[in-house]
């Protein structure tokens, strides 16, 4: 594995009776942040748990921070900060108890940074976990993870269920983490807004398969929605990269993942009037990718 890769998954698969994760290929360079987007049940959590060594892949290679998973998970986990939507702290203890416990384990525990995070997240160390709101519990878990300064953060749906203020605080903190160049983040979400705000790289996952993975700029610059005006007699050919083509009367809406200026010229040459060329939001791109992927997948492909 290249030393510059924080995460590398090659041809990874995992079979369950009713779900199959197939041929997962992912790589995250050190210092980068990757958003893993997928609908519920797409395989995001399974992928993340494999990266943590909690689920063993049936085949393929998983390397995290240069360590082969799950075999070398202990060495990797010393440098990984992990938080997931279903991770809870001990309810009858307070945050200080948890902080002391983490401090007793990790030499890298930064007490000053922990105090800073307490203030930034508006948390009280003596507050019992069971009395905290969901947002406070998520922030407490993030504090415990961040204050030991791991090289890689793996976060499974970290912002789910948070109010806008708490989400903002969490996202800001994650962005600050990346100011230290050798740290990397992989986080899953079905909130495309968070992913768009944070990520350098984006991976779409659906029905156990990676359907697209690229840097954010490439996604945003290559996807367009074109609105054409066409006569009944105008034949519009299917172009490469077009993932959806819908015609209603004289109107035609084309969604393409490989937009360039030649495309509009080509439609004009076919007799269509290009009314608009629109940028797409990441959510629109994601939905289009998923729909296109499901159309090209035969029912037998999906477990």
């Amino acid at each position, binding site marked *: 594995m290249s030393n510059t890769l924080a995460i590398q998954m090659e041809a990874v698969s995992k079979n369950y009776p009713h779900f199959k994760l197939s041929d997962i290929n992912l790589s995250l360079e050190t210092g980068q942040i990757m958003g893993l987007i997928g609908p519920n049940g797409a395989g995001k959590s399974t992928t993340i748990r494999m990266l943590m060594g*909690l689920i063993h892949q049936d085949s393929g290679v998983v390397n995290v921070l240069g360590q082969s998973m*799950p075999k070398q998970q*202990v060495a990797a*986990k010393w440098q990984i900060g*992990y938080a*997931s939507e*279903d991770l809870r702290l001990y309810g*009858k203890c307070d945050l200080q108890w948890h902080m002391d416990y983490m401090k007793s384990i990790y030499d890298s525990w930064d007490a000053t940074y922990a105090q800073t995070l307490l203030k930034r997240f508006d948390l009280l160390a003596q507050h019992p976990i069971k009395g905290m709101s969901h947002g406070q519990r998520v922030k407490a*878990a993030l504090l415990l993870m961040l204050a030991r300064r791991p090289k890689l953060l793996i976060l499974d749906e970290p912002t789910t269920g948070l109010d806008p203020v708490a989400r903002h605080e969490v996202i800001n903190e994650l962005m600050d983490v990346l100011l230290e160049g050798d740290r990397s983040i992989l986080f899953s979400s079905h909130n495309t807004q968070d992913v768009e705000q944070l990520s350098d790289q984006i991976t779409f996952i659906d029905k156990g398969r990676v359907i697209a993975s690229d840097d954010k700029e490439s996604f945003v610059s290559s996807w367009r929605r074109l609105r054409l005006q066409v006569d009944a007699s105008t034949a519009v050919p299917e172009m490469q990269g077009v993932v959806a083509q819908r015609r209603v009367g004289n109107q035609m809406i084309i969604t393409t993942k490989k937009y360039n200026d030649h495309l509009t010229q080509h439609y004009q040459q076919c007799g269509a009037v290009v009314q608009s060329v629109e940028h797409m939001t990441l959510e629109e791109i994601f939905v289009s990718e998923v729909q296109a992927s499901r159309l090209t997948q035969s029912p037998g492909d999906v477990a």
Partner: protein
Amino acid sequence: MKTSMIKALIRKDWLLHRKTFVLFAVMALLSVAIFAVESTKAFYLAMSLLLTMVILIGALLVFSSVVNERKEHTLPFVMSLPITIYDYTLSKMLFNLGAYLAAWLLLLGCTVALFMTQAHLPNGLIPMAVIVLLQLLLSFFLVLGAALVSGSEKVTIVVTTLTNVSVSLFMFWAGSFDGIYEHLSGDVAVWNRSSLGFVVSEVVLAVMIVAGTFYLQSRKKDFI
């Protein structure tokens, strides 16, 4: 395996569960004290309370330190630490066995001492008491193994219930065994082929359950 992490996990479980454990251990000791009262009713009361307390301590340990960790979703927090499934299993085994054995040995010692020092209690009951207490230890190993391997609250409840029901049946069965029955009311504790056979079988079975638990845990590919 890193010893410091195993210690850290055991320390965590002890800090989280020590208050309840100590409370139950004191209640168990109080039931042992009732043996000192010179009355048949007191003897049966003490025996029932003692068995109940030992069973409760075992259930408390397994449910609070293993089952609840899954149920309350604190297991992902634990597994995010630099440990493997083996480390986790080992730490749970050591904590639970350590805590249970501390209570169990105390009760065993107190029970045997009472039988030996109290004139109204026949020493002939000592082997039977040891056999029954060992059966409780065996049941605890089984419940702990079931909780760790299945990770299921329902399975653990079923195994706990079955092992508890089996205690009285086992007492009845072992107490009617040739070589044991005829010495129960005797003045001397008789360690013969039958009583020692029970003890050895129980110890071997306990070791097999622990080994089986580790084996099944090592074959797991999905832990959470």
